[in-house]
């Protein structure tokens, strides 16, 4: 990909992301009342993040086992309401520890 091609992709990514943020800020004066739209917007972030995480996380590491451990650690700590940073770092440490064990013990 040339740098000029990249700049086109960047403009589309930054532009659409910004429009999604700025248009409602400028236009919407009243609250949304449509229950279906409100409900759709309520569920959507969770659906999006889930789709992006599973199954992608299980192919993001060298071994499925380490990904399973990392994912398990993340779910466990998230259930305990730990912060985003804590969960993210702990998931990484879980993967690292498992990969070290697999690499050097087996």
């Amino acid at each position, binding site marked *: *990909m040339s*740098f000029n*091609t*990249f700049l086109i*992709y*960047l403009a*589309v*990514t*930054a532009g*659409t*992301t910004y429009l*999604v*943020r*700025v*248009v*409602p*800020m*400028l236009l*919407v004066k009243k609250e949304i009342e449509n*229950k279906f739209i*409100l*409900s*759709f*917007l*309520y*569920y*959507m972030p*969770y*659906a*999006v*993040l*889930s*789709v*992006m*995480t*599973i*199954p992608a*996380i299980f192919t*993001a*590491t060298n071994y499925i086992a*380490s*990904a399973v451990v*990392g*994912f398990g650690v*993340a779910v466990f700590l*998230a*259930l305990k*309401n730990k912060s*985003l940073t*804590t*969960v*993210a*770092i*702990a*998931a*990484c440490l879980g*993967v*690292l520890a498992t990969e*070290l064990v697999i*690499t050097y013990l087996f």
Partner: protein
Amino acid sequence: MIKSAAFKQGIKDGIPICLGYLSVSFAFGIFCIEQGLTVLEALLISMTCVTSAGQLAAVPIMASCGSLIELALTQIIINLRYSLMSISLSQKLDETFNARRRCAISFMVTDEIFGVASSQDGKPPKEYFYGLMLTPWFGWATGTLVGAAAGNILPEIVITALAVAIYGMFVAIVVPPARDNRNVLYCVLTAIALSCIFAFVPFLKVVQSGFVIIICSVVASALFAYLKPIGEGERS
């Protein structure tokens, strides 16, 4: 609040967000290099977009020279929640926020900044918003730069581990509401099932990742918006 005091308070409140962004954007920087982007390209994406999930979805499309329509649709779908936050935040802005200033602060409407700004009493002065948004922006850009540049010198096993950071953050966002709300849980499980179908059924594997994200999340969300519309308590 006096202007400079409000700005300082905003900076102060932005520090924990900044620290969280450092680790996640560090992983994003590494991810960009793995996907074949340059350090400068990774930095430019973070400086202009400031959306973790959106950027993570955009990079593979860029790297594979996917369609621009797919890229734009993916960003709109993934970042649509920012529209809701913008609507909500617009109620927190005082009369000094003209169109130009609204355009300026819209750039930094993120989950975390929205969360902190929403928790403020009344309508904070505009200087507070500026301070609150400045520190996380620097954290997001700096983390990406260091991750992309240092990703080359870190051991492979460490890079692999850090690649999971963003997924860990997503888990931390999804799991608590899924635990507390059965409808959210079933919606999430439906979305995951659809996602796995696209990943493992042979003739569906060819569908681009951006479209998979859009199709699965829209179908699951629309289904549950129809079957289980939210009540008053869930609107906030």
